């Protein structure tokens, strides 16, 4: 019988995960609308309710059909993408001692959620049988295979002081020592790159690119498009919570209860990510692959070395 620190009843866990993803996706949508309105210089008043109205209209529009799609994969893609966002969220501590399933191999589960999310985005590009989404899906696989290593190195570096791969122990290791954002400085920027890239946001949104007429969503409309938008924002929520847990000691903090601290820190990370998204243009894929392998990967080696030395000191 292998003991697991925090774990909830499966049904309770599922409801909490779905609720957190829904709230998170709404928060991301509102943040995007407000930041876009601010950058555009228009009044912020109507920006708060604009996402709901837009979502209602998208829901009211008809579903996508192309000449000969692979409908099974086309429906499986958003479902798998949200499933992987949920998978990542289950292993993250959402309260001071409470987590849906704080298993001993937490960072490996988050890593495999990221990989299988890449498969979901490729399927979303492949399924419509249309040239522009196909090119967008293949572009994302090139980027996905390149930023994958960064996220693994950063998570392993966070596991060194915790002497365990469970996110609960990573938070515990930050409570007595300094937060990882301070003692492992290179980690946060690298992990923000991964968060932007895996959730198709901001400068690393190579899959739903505007220049390819919306990339993988070029043929998508109606509830299926709402499902894909929700999936992207749910994945951003999961990675914002993961950033807060790994670098800002997640639920740890004075006065406020654990989940409140986690909500505040995750919302801060969401605002930073969306702000970067509205100020930096999209990076061309060739350049991102070259930079990821020749600049960011050596940086993550250096980051790992720093984390190792700091852990031993």
């Amino acid at each position: 019988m292998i003991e697991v620190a925090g774990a909830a009843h499966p049904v309770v866990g599922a409801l909490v995960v779905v609720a957190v993803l829904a709230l998170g996706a709404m928060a991301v949508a509102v943040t995007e609308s407000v930041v876009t309105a601010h950058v555009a210089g228009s009044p912020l008043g109507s920006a708060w309710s604009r996402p709901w109205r837009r979502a209602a209209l998208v829901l009211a529009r008809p579903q996508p059909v192309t000449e000969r799609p692979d409908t099974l994969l086309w429906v499986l893609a958003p479902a798998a993408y949200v499933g992987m966002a949920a998978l990542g969220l289950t292993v993250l501590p959402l309260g001071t001692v409470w987590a849906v399933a704080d298993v001993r191999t937490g960072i490996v589960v988050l890593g495999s959620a990221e990989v299988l999310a890449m498969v979901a985005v490729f399927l979303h590009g492949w399924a419509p049988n249309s040239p522009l989404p196909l090119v967008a899906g293949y572009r994302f696989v090139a980027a996905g295979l390149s930023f994958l290593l960064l996220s693994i190195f950063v998570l392993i570096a966070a596991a060194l002081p915790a002497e365990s791969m469970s996110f609960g122990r990573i938070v515990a290791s930050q409570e007595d020592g300094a937060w990882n954002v301070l003692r492992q400085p290179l980690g946060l920027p690298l992990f923000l790159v991964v968060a932007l890239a895996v959730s198709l946001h901001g400068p690393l949104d190579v899959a739903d690119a505007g220049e390819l007429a919306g990339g993988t969503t070029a043929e998508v409309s109606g509830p299926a498009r709402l499902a894909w938008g929700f999936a992207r924002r749910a994945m951003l929520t999961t990675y914002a919570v993961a950033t807060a847990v790994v670098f800002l000691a997640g639920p740890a903090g004075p006065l406020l209860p654990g989940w409140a601290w986690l909500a505040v820190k995750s919302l801060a990370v969401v605002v930073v990510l969306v702000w970067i998204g509205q100020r930096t243009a999209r990076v061309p894929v060739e350049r991102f692959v070259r930079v990821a392998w020749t600049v960011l990967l050596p940086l993550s080696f250096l980051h790992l070395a720093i984390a190792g030395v700091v852990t031993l000191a």
Partner: protein
Amino acid sequence: MTGTWVDIAFGVFAVAAAWFGWRVFVTDSMVRATFSLLASFLNVGAILVLLLAEYLGVAMFFMMGVEMTVMAIYMVAFMMNPAGLNPMQMVHQPRVAVVVGVLSTAGFGAVALAADLDTVAIVDPDGTIRALGHELMGSSMLVMQVVGVTLVATMVGAVVLSAASGRFGPADVGSVPPAIVPGDDTTRPGVDVGGDGGGHDHDHGHGGGAHGHDDGGDA
């Protein structure tokens, strides 16, 4: 998690793994074939988790996700009719294959049934990952370093074989395959003496005819 639940879960995962494994070779669409192989791996990963090899099970999710994505790219690039729009008939010697498949299953199954393995409970189930870590850093450290060298050799070999052009220009310019019979130029591969061309390729390979020497030149 009482024993019966574990057995039921194991049964479901085992049947799913075998069914997806069979689907790999019968579906028409290459993308569906590749990702049913991924589904088969995910089910085997789940069985490994049931076998309390938790790290290996979840690591298999991660490793096989990457491997199957790469495999999907190569399946779609190098298979005719990649999306299964026409039914797939790329099979030869089907009966021989089925017989050998059944024989090998029966052979390995017989070994499993005949061997009387005395089951031993895991001594410290909590510390299996920590034990693996100490093992890799301790007595199996040699395994890790040899794996490192193997991986470097694999990377260099893969790049040499697949990259179109390296530091010294295109890979196939100037290099001429050696003759099979030393000294006899007509036996140089790539020189279609009999003009019989590859079975399935759609037009002649690089420059046919006897002028094998500048064969690579016009690539």
